Structure formats: C-alpha cells, structure tokens
C-alpha cells in the first residue's frame, strides 16, 4: 500500500513537472502575443499566438485572441489608422479561430461571445442592403431592348429613357439613351441627352457625396460622368461632320478620362482618320487596343484599320508589330501610374523665396492651385 502511494505521488509529480515545462514557453508566447497585439504589432503578435495555439494548455486562449485579431482585420480596421482598410480574406479565418477556441474549451464564455459577434458580422455581410429594384431592372432591360429594334419610334425611346430616369436618378439612362439616339442618326437629340446626363451625374454625386469614402473616388466619379457626356457629344458632332467642335469635345473627354477610355480613343482615331492625320489615328487606335475592355467588333475594326496603315518597321509581321506596340504602351502606362501624383496629396517641399528666405505657403491653403516647376535655362 505504502509503495503504491509513493508510486502515485511520483507519477503525479512527474506529470506536474512535465506539464509545467511544456506550459511555460506556451504561456510566455501567449503573454507575448497579447502584449504585441496591444501595441498593434500584428505580424509578430500572430506568430506568437500561433505558437501558443499549438499547446493544449493555452490553445483556447490563443485561438480566441487570434480570432479577435482577425475579426478586427476582417471587419473593423477601416481607417483606424490612416490608410488602413478591411481585409475580407480574414473573415473566414476569424470564424475558424473562434470555433477552434470554443472547441478547445467549450466552457469559455468570452470565446463564445466573440464567435456570436463574428457570426453576426458574417451574416450581415451576406445581406445585400440595396438590391437593384425590380422596377429599375425592368426599365433598364426595356431600354436595352431598343438596341436591336431599329424600327422603334424615337418618341418611344425618349419615353423609355424618361421612365428609367424617374425611377432612379443616376445618369446611366441618359448615356445609354444618347448612344441609342446616335445609332439612329438622331444626333441633335443625342447631344441634348448627353448634356442632361452630365448635369444629372453631377447632381447624383452631390446628393450621395458622403457615400464616396475617399475624396479621390467622388472626384473620379464626377470626371467619369463628364467624360462620358463629352465623348458622346463629341461623337455625335463627328457624325454631323463638325470636326472642329467634335475635336474639342473628344479631347475634353480624353483629358477627363486620362486617355484610359476605350471608346473615346477609338472615336479620336476615327476623327484623326477623317482629318487625314494617319499618324495620330494610329496612336489612338493603338492606345485603344492596349486598354482592356471594349466590344470585340470595335476592337476588330481598330485592328483592321491599323493593318492598312504604314508601320515604323514594315519588315516585321503585322501581328508581331502590333504585340510589340501594345505591350510597350501597357508598360509605359504602368510606369506612369506608379510615378503619377494624380489623386494623391501634393507632397511637402522645402521652398524658399528667390533670395533664399523660407517660403510661407499658408496663403495657398484651401485654394485651387496651379503649381508649375520650371527652370530658366
């Protein structure tokens, strides 16, 4: 009996010592992970907590902590620090960690609560808060159906545009309507329609300004609406053979779209061709084809137009030449986008007056500003 008890004590002691040795580094990792996360050093915190999660004794706590970090990353970190944004890819991982925490210790109330919150967030995510209304969808479909109905009377089309515009105040029906009118040769009506579209676009953005989170986004949307309108108007003017006015509008659309609009580049190409400027036409067609998107028939037309034009290296095959030209443009665009300051804050520069004293820029704040860098040589 006596020996037996001693044996048990020894075994118990060995177990205790064993778990003590295994537990200490794991617990250390857990504490370290929590401290690091308090400091918002996410990567190091996650590494420490992952180590702690591998140990049975700290698994529940570590999984819960990881779950909470991923919950924050997945749903809550938008703009907590300047430039931070939600990372939806973490949402599944948050749920998985919290489930693992509850599995490791089913009695752990804090883990259950966190899991409930995460489940709620995930469920809310799946609900479309504003699905397109059936009425708007039907009116859009009706408008679209006129694309292939050449005999439909213009008054009917105008009524369909109006009905869709009343149902929802975004500029889309005016722009697709203007295109329908252009297709039918109703050029003056198309111009008027596109002009209304531009005004409607500005108004729609003004009304929903706070929905555009970054100022760059609302500015981009203003420019998009105005660019669509200018391009449609320019194209209608081109078809009216008023090339001078068409050029002004199409070039305006090009500036607004920063040369990134497929249809606009095609239109500029057609205009250049009509004005007997094959070099300029070639540039625009190549620009267009180097952009993604654009309906296949238009892409084909542009390719065909290019194949009939003189090339810089006439000995290369057309396909090889085209591929070289397009990839050069794509590379240039990528490089320019990386260097461009457009839609970024004007960087701070150390300025002096002409005679070398510090230059005070405070009077420039809040103004529309033209900054020109020059050298007298």
């Amino acid at each position, binding site marked *: 009996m006596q020996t037996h008890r001693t044996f048990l004590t020894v075994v118990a002691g060995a177990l205790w010592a064993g778990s003590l040795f295994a537990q200490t580094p794991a617990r250390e990792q857990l504490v370290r992970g929590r401290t690091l996360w308090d400091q918002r050093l996410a990567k190091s915190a996650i590494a420490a907590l992952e180590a702690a999660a591998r140990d049975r004794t700290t698994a529940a706590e570590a999984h819960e902590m990881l779950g909470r970090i991923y919950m924050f990353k997945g749903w809550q970190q938008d703009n907590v620090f300047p430039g931070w944004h939600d990372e939806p890819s973490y949402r599944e991982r948050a749920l998985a960690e919290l489930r693992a925490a509850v599995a490791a210790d089913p009695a752990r109330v804090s883990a259950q609560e966190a899991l409930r919150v995460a489940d709620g967030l995930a469920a809310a995510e799946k609900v479309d808060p504003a699905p397109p209304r059936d009425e708007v969808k039907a009116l859009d479909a009706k408008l679209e159906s006129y694309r292939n109905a050449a005999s439909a009377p213009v008054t009917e089309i105008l009524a369909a545009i109006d009905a869709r515009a009343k149902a929802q105040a975004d500029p889309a029906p005016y722009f697709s309507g203007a295109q329908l009118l252009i297709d039918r040769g109703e050029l003056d009506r198309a111009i008027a329609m596109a002009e209304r579209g531009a005004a409607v676009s500005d108004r729609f953005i003004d009304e929903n300004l706070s929905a555009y989170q970054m100022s760059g986004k609302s500015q981009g949307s203003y420019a998009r609406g105005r660019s669509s309108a200018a391009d449609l108007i320019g194209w209608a003017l081109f078809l009216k053979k008023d090339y001078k006015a068409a050029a002004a509008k199409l070039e305006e659309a090009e500036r607004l779209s920063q040369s990134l609009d497929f249809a606009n580049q095609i239109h500029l190409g057609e205009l250049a061709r009509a004005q007997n400027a094959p070099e300029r036409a070639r540039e625009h067609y190549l620009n267009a084809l180097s952009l993604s998107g654009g309906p296949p028939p238009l892409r084909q037309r542009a390719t065909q137009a290019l194949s009939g034009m003189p090339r810089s290296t006439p000995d290369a095959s057309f396909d090889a030449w085209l591929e070289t030209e397009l990839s050069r443009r794509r590379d240039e665009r990528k490089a320019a986008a990386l260097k461009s300051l457009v839609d970024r804050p004007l960087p701070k520069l150390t300025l002096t007056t002409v005679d070398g004293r510090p230059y005070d820029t405070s*009077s420039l704040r809040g103004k*529309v500003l*033209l900054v*020109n860098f020059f050298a007298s040589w």
Partner: protein
Amino acid sequence: MPHLKTAYAKYQGDPTVAFLLISIDEDTARLQRYLTEMKFPFPVARAAAADTEQVMRFDNIPSTFYVDRDGIVRYQIGGNESHGDSPARVSWFIDQLKSR
C-alpha cells in the same frame, strides 16, 4: 511660360485660385535676370532640383500640377506634353477643379 501669364489674367481677382511657380534654378543671378524679364504677376518660389525630382517624382521640366481645394493633385502635365501652350487648356483644368 507666357501662356501662364495670359491664363492668370482670368483669375487675378479670384481669391479661390492661386498660381505658384517653383524654380529649380541653381544660379540665382540668372534666375533674377529671367524674372526681371518675365515680370510674373504671381509668386515665384525656389526648390532644390534633386529634392524636387525625388519628392515630386518627375523628370520633366517644366511640369504642371493642378491641385484641388483639399490639396490633392488632380491633373499632372509632364514637360513634353503639348498641353500648356494654350491658356484655354490651363483655364479648362482650373475650371474643372473650381466647379467641384
């Protein structure tokens, strides 16, 4: 450069618009001579060339940046683009930003 003076005439009395020229000249005397000759009606500042190229990330002189009220660059026109020779284009960019 003369086109900037012409374009500026339209905004001279407008408190919501400002023009700023930044010279990257190193030779002060030469710059002074140039400014005396040009008589710009708007302020001219100076910046170190190397510093400017690094911070502004351009290698084109001249380069023009159109900045909105919030201090965000909205249009950037590099040196050899045929933008700026026309006062109408300059004011087109400014009017875009004024109307927002």
